[in-house]
């Protein structure tokens, strides 16, 4: 029999208006219990991150109060929040790339020796202990700039746990994790819950909410739509509350009609920035009119493959032919002029210029185009008109096209990037985690777009950690493992998730077998 759990924290009638006039939270109330995992749900721009920033002392609320353990408190800074036992993992990384994992974890709460010095030995020890405790396999002496995104996310979580949070805010922690990693994280979250801690979990993936959360508060356009027991509400009802309409994520797609080869990779070996070989003699081709899905555990060479194809890195041997032409000597601009579009995986690092406005970001890949630029000056009118169209078409939630991209919600930043890439009418699309952090409605939209492009004869490479996405979109499906394809499936409908998992972990590996037979 379960006792009614006690309330640890209440946010009452929170109102937050940003300085540019955006009302991000309107009269939102949230009640958290001890020992629960509480989901916060809502479309992109609904105000989830804002509410959490208020709770963590980053953004002062314009109205409303916070009641912690029965007494009203003001949380004035992150420092204040941390000292009150609140920890937060932000939607976008808050790590220092030039420091090691251990340094990042202990930053601000450094163990000392002889009073004045950092006890680095102790720091490394403490960091590895906490990593071990939560079953995260991380080399704590590695520099953060050298580790893959999935590990970075784990470091963020450890950072919060190391500070001993009783209330842990996780803003879309699973967006960058693979299903296996997500499952591992969930085991840890359950442990925390059983410890009597409270976890606030933000995610756009409703099955995750179902799987792990006790209660869910749903937000729409800055307002709360109520709190529900997760057992008692269907995912359909959840998305209806979020979006205000039914969302269909499954669609019947026509079988692919592959045409000529648009992209060919021949015997590619690619290296990461440290010079470690990550892609091993990989060869494949993608035809117009098909989507090649690439699944795999992060760090198996996907990033290096994509960087090579898009011209971001020249650290490779072998050949990459775009419409039959070798692109090694091409500039990135040259490659893009051959009608290749790229949605990068890390939207803040390489997807956008966060201090520029939406319009400038939308045109950063085509401002030299004659349609948008005269001999000397940009054709501002045309650009403005086109920006408005794109913002409307791609459902970017913003005040105006002059708003700084960095001030948009995470999902809306992603939409700006997708709009930019799709608006050039590409022939080849490299989509790396295209719907990461995007709400259900917009996810549906982007997936449909990808299919539209395919049907129009575009060659698409889709790299995604979201197996649903991979299964529902791919015409061919490849699994990347240790720098090569451990399996390639043409009959995607008949691949099971278990089978795929075995290929992802290298338990099954057609490539190795084929290699051995040679």
């Amino acid at each position, binding site marked *: 029999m379960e006792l009614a759990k006690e309330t640890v924290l209440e946010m009452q009638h929170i109102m937050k208006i940003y300085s540019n006039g955006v009302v991000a939270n309107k009269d939102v109330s949230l009640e958290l219990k001890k020992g629960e995992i509480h989901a916060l749900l809502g479309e992109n721009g609904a105000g989830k991150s804002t509410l959490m920033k208020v709770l963590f002392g*980053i953004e002062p609320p314009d109205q409303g109060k916070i009641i912690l353990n029965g007494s009203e408190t003001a949380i004035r*800074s*992150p*420092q204040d*929040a*941390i*000292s009150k036992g609140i920890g*937060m993992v*932000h939607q976008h*990384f*808050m*790590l*220092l*790339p*030039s*420091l090691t994992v251990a*340094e990042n974890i202990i*930053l*601000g*709460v*450094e163990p*000392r020796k002889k009073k*004045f*010095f*950092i006890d*680095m030995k102790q720091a490394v020890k403490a960091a590895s202990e906490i990593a071990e405790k939560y079953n995260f396999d991380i080399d704590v002496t590695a520099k953060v700039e050298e580790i893959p995104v999935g590990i970075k996310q784990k470091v963020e979580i450890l*950072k919060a746990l190391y*500070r001993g949070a009783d209330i842990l805010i996780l803003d879309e922690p699973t967006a960058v994790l693979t299903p296996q990693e997500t499952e591992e994280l969930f085991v840890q979250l359950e442990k925390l819950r059983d410890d009597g801690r409270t976890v606030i979990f933000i995610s756009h993936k409703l099955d995750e909410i179902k799987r792990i959360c006790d209660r869910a508060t749903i937000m729409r356009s800055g307002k709360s739509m109520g709190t529900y027991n997760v057992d008692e509400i269907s995912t359909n009802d959840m998305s209806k509350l979020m979006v205000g309409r039914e969302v269909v994520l499954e669609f019947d797609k026509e079988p692919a009609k592959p045409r000529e080869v648009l992209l060919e990779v021949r015997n590619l070996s690619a*290296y990461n*920035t440290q*010079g470690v070989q990550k892609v091993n003699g990989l060869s494949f081709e993608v035809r117009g009119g098909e989507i090649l899905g690439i699944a795999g555990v992060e760090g198996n060479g996907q990033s290096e493959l994509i960087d090579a194809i898009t011209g971001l890195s*020249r*650290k*490779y*041997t072998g050949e990459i032919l775009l419409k039959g032409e070798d692109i*090694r000597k091409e500039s990135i601009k040259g490659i893009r002029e051959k009608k290749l579009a790229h949605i990068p995986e890390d939207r803040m690092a390489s997807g956008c210029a966060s201090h520029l406005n939406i319009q400038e970001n939308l045109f950063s890949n085509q401002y030299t185009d004659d349609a948008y630029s005269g001999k000397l000056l940009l054709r501002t009118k045309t650009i403005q008109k086109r920006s408005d169209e794109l913002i409307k078409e791609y459902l970017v939630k913003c005040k105006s096209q002059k708003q700084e991209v960095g001030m948009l919600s995470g999902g809306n930043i992603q939409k700006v990037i997708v709009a930019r890439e799709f608006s050039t009418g590409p022939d080849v699309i490299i989509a790396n985690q295209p719907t990461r952090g995007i709400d259900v409605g917009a996810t549906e939209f982007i997936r449909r777009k990808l299919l539209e492009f395919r049907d129009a004869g575009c060659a698409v490479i889709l790299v995604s950690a979201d197996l649903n996405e991979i299964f529902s979109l791919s015409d061919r499906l490849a699994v990347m493992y240790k720098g090569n394809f451990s399996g390639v499936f043409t009959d995607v409908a008949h691949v099971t998730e278990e089978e795929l998992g075995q290929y992802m972990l290298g338990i099954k590996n057609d490539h190795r077998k084929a290699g051995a037979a040679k």
Partner: protein
Amino acid sequence: MAGNIFSADFVNAILRMSTPILFATLASGIASKSGITNMALEGMLLFASLFGVIFSSLTHSFLGGLLLTMLIGGLIGLALAFFILQLKTDEILAAIALNLIATGGTVLLLLAVSGDRGASTSISSVSAPIVHIPFVEKIPFLGEVLSGQNLMTWLALLAVVVVHVFLYKTPMGLKIRAVGENKNAAESVGISSKKIQYIALVLSGVLCSMGGYFLSGGYMNMFTKDMSAGKGFIALAASSMGADTPIGGFLVTMLFGIAQALGNLMQLTTIPTELIQMIPYLTTLIGLAVYSYTVMKRKSRLGVH
């Protein structure tokens, strides 16, 4: 001339000329690591060289003069920080203002305090002592270099080590680097970036004032108008070429010192002095070019073909 280059005198000249720049380079490094470009080094040097003369004469002691000058340096750093962090003045504009104030202000202040115009001829200041090391000074060459240096030169070398340890081994140093690299990230773990930047700028001011003190109490024995003569800017360049690390900054400063000492030697030849005076600045330019070239090389080293 070759004989001159390998003499102890030459090495001494390098060290002597590098001392003020080295302090300022370290000062620049700390500020930059915290995310602020301290372009006010020039003015800070100038103020400190005047106050050094005044304070050492008031206290009749080198140490008293130095400590009070360091205090003033810290206050100037604090003022700069106040404008940049509190009043949100642009850091470059604030620095330019400070440099301009220093140019006129020091002359005015000198006139008010002593009645001297342009040089502190009537102030009897105390210079930093020369350190003679018994026995060692008898060793040829080595003894001549190790012994007979100004105490401030030793302090500058010591400061390289201290600042290095401070930045890389202490919690405060880690916080300074964190704030400089990504303010938001640092704040998200509860570090107050404002406080850290205040501290960094105050320390920067203190270090820089030691360089200024040496200018008028070691390098020369009085204050003269505009005596910093661009050393603050050279230090800024040296620090950034040394990736704003104390060790890197030290190496580059030494390189500049060598260039300048060479230049001084060349003044004995028939080469026009104007050309020779360009040497420190020219080395800065060449150094920067070499630096960016090696960075580029390193980046593309892994690129195949």
